[in-house]
């Protein structure tokens, strides 16, 4: 089966290696293997696979990772556009 790849170069994921202490938690929580360890620090090895779930940033105790995580379903985004609020699953959908 061909691999499922999404749009290139859209993710808001950023890693500040200066702040990384090499705790490896980001490599454990990322469901798409975006991070890998190199020389005791985390590295973004597969950035385009990021789905912006926010697990890495939430679990980085050293604030080395930032990502604008959010709801990725179309109806929630339309709801956000129409109401001017942040996209939310409270749109009645079951996302």
């Amino acid at each position, binding site marked *: *089966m*061909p*691999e*499922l*790849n*999404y*749009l*290139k170069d*859209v*993710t*808001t994921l950023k890693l500040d290696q200066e702040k990384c202490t090499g705790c490896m*938690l980001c490599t*454990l*929580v*990322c*469901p*798409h*293997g975006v991070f890998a360890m190199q020389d005791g620090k985390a590295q973004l090895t597969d950035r385009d*696979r*990021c*789905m*912006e*779930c*926010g*697990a890495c940033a*939430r*679990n980085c*105790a050293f604030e080395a990772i930032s990502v*604008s*995580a*959010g*709801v*990725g*379903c*179309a*109806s*929630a*985004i*339309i709801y956000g556009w129409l109401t001017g609020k942040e*996209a*939310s*699953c409270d749109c009645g*959908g*079951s*996302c």
Partner: protein
Amino acid sequence: MSQSCCPPETETTSAATSSCCPPQPAAANCCPPATLEESCCAAKDKKERPGYRLEPYVTDWLSTPTGEVPQVATRLGRQDTLGAWQMRWGSGRNRYTIAPGLYAVGQPDGDAPVMVSANYKLSFDALRKELSKIDAWILVIDTKGINVWCAAGKGTFGTDEIVRRVKSCQLEKIVSHRQLIVPQLGAPGVAAHAVARQSGFKVIYGPVRASDLPSFLLSGLQATAQMRRVTFKARERLILTPVELVMMNKVSGWAIICLFLLGGIGPSIYSLNDMWHRGLTASAVYLAGLLTGAVLTPILLPWIPGAALAWKGVVAGLAAAVLACGLFAGLLDLPGSLALLLALPAVASYCAMNFTGSTTYTSPSGVEKEMRLAIPLQALALLGAATAWFWSAFSGGS
């Protein structure tokens, strides 16, 4: 508890022993003896309590230092399977919940692992059915009936609720260790370091899939790289498609009504005959678009060219439209074919785009980007299709 040899409590025996727990008759050798340290009559009342109904998945009650904890089955029953089907078809999704709190599988003791789960029953079922032959505690937190991953995204499966639930269940009195196994997909809502600081319990992220839990436990809480990766296999995509259709029910109903009403417009101002025939054809095209976008595209997802879901919908929709044009060549005039070739891919594209909310790999930034381009084009295509459709009416075709 075996029911066959334990005589049911009769009213008279209950009334006669109203003071407190009566001594168990020695003959009832297959019924476990009532434990004395339990609160009054707890053992007798296991099956029935006024005003309460026992959940069918509860098999027994375990006494713990903080009170009784329900022990749950690790095999799913008919009701669980039926409930799962209802969920997949979108019926009653907002109230398929279980009560938050502590549950047990097997005979856990103070050293047994604690697994954290959501109070969406499908999540709870997915977990417990993998835990046969395992003694463990399940800490169900209140996620408002939403599954682990989605609730984590919203933050309801999160640090605060875990800390609150650990404290309200007095977990520190039940287990001697200080570890919580949290599903990896809960990580977007849980800050492991904050949970440790606020509750004293260390978060260990378990595998993505509950089915990997037994080997995760066997290997000393180590997950392989594969266990840490989320997948999106054909079966996983397929089970998500019914709800995509159901979610479109309301839109589909209105669309079909409008298509029938508009179908009657023609050279004779309004024709009921046209309304029926043109309305039926147009509705068939709409439904073909819906099925192509919401069912066919998700199933064939990896094999359809392109990255954007909206684009995959266009490709699948065009293929379906060309096929339909070939099959019904004799029935369609030129503007009718044009309407079909525009409308079907547009509807399919919109439905496929909506599937982004169900995928396991699309990012919100990407979805927003593709929507900004796709929605105007979908609208334009539908407008073109409507124009061609009316042109067809006034030129005498279908």
